[in-house]
């Protein structure tokens, strides 16, 4: 088990990124906070002492991805059993750093949980397809295709919202 000092350093390095990932994929703040906390607890219980920094980070994101999966299933079950009041869950703020971010965040929420996780892990966290496959429990060969679909779907949703992408990647 990591000593308290090492854990604090690791927590400070990773908690912002992990919280951002979980919040954007889960879509509500309360659920995300629980998942982030549980991810660190499980990390402390199960992480091997021989892990280096990137391995520790990847392991943490893998745990979080599994918990997100469980959370998604639980929410689906609850939705089937009880009609959930949409105002009972505090949505993640849609503000970002660019003018487009609000619309982009709303479009991102239209994707499936798996699509959001895929795009986030690849584009924000910079993980390779092999690592993403391990984190999301999907075949390595499927990652590229699923990524392509997720990205196309996101662009499609944005188009539906009236956001057009210029050819150099910028938007108007």
């Amino acid at each position, binding site marked *: *088990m990591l000593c*308290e000092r090492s*854990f*604090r350093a690791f*927590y*400070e390095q990773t*908690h*912002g*990124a992990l*919280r*951002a*990932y979980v919040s*954007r994929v889960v879509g509500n703040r309360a659920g995300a906070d629980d998942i982030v*906390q549980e991810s*660190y*607890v*499980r*990390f*402390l*219980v*199960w992480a091997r002492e021989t892990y280096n920094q990137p391995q520790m980070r990847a392991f943490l994101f893998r*745990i979080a991805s*599994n918990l997100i999966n469980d959370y998604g299933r639980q929410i689906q079950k609850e939705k089937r059993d009880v009609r959930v009041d949409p105002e009972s869950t505090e949505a993640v*703020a849609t*503000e*970002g*750093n*660019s003018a*487009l*971010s609000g619309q*982009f*965040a709303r479009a*991102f929420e239209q994707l499936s949980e798996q699509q959001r996780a895929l*795009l*986030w892990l*690849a*584009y*924000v966290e*910079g993980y390779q397809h092999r690592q993403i496959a391990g984190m999301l429990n999907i075949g390595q060969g499927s990652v*590229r*295709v699923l990524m*392509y*679909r997720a*990205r*196309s779907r*996101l*662009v499609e949703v944005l188009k539906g919202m009236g956001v057009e*992408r210029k*050819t*150099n*990647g*910028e*938007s108007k």
Partner: protein
Amino acid sequence: MVNRNRECPFERQVREAIAAGTLTEELKQHATGCSECAETLFVMSELRSLGGTPEPSVQEFEIQRILLKARLQREARGASKLRLLLNGLVLSLLFIGLGAAAFVDWSKIENLLAGSSPLPVLIAAIVLVLLVTQELETGDIA
């Protein structure tokens, strides 16, 4: 229909360059004529912008809570391992005892298993099932 084999060879380079903040004019130029790279450039830039949204600062009580919960779970895990060891020991003693009895007088064991006195066999079977199910329940992984 998606052609899975037609992937732009520069897409990965574009991705890595954006991540490293070293997107060259050459790659930008390529992206203007390649829909896949243009999409990657657009989606990745916007997503990274969302990822950069300020998050609440580290809270001491949260770290303390995580450390405490982890310690409790590790202790529970340690207790579970100890229980497994003890269960193994009990089972070993049971079989050793059974073997010793058989060595002394096998006919008694035969009578026991044949049903002349099924109670001890039944109790042993129940204990065995309980031990196994208990281990399955505690075999929780991350």
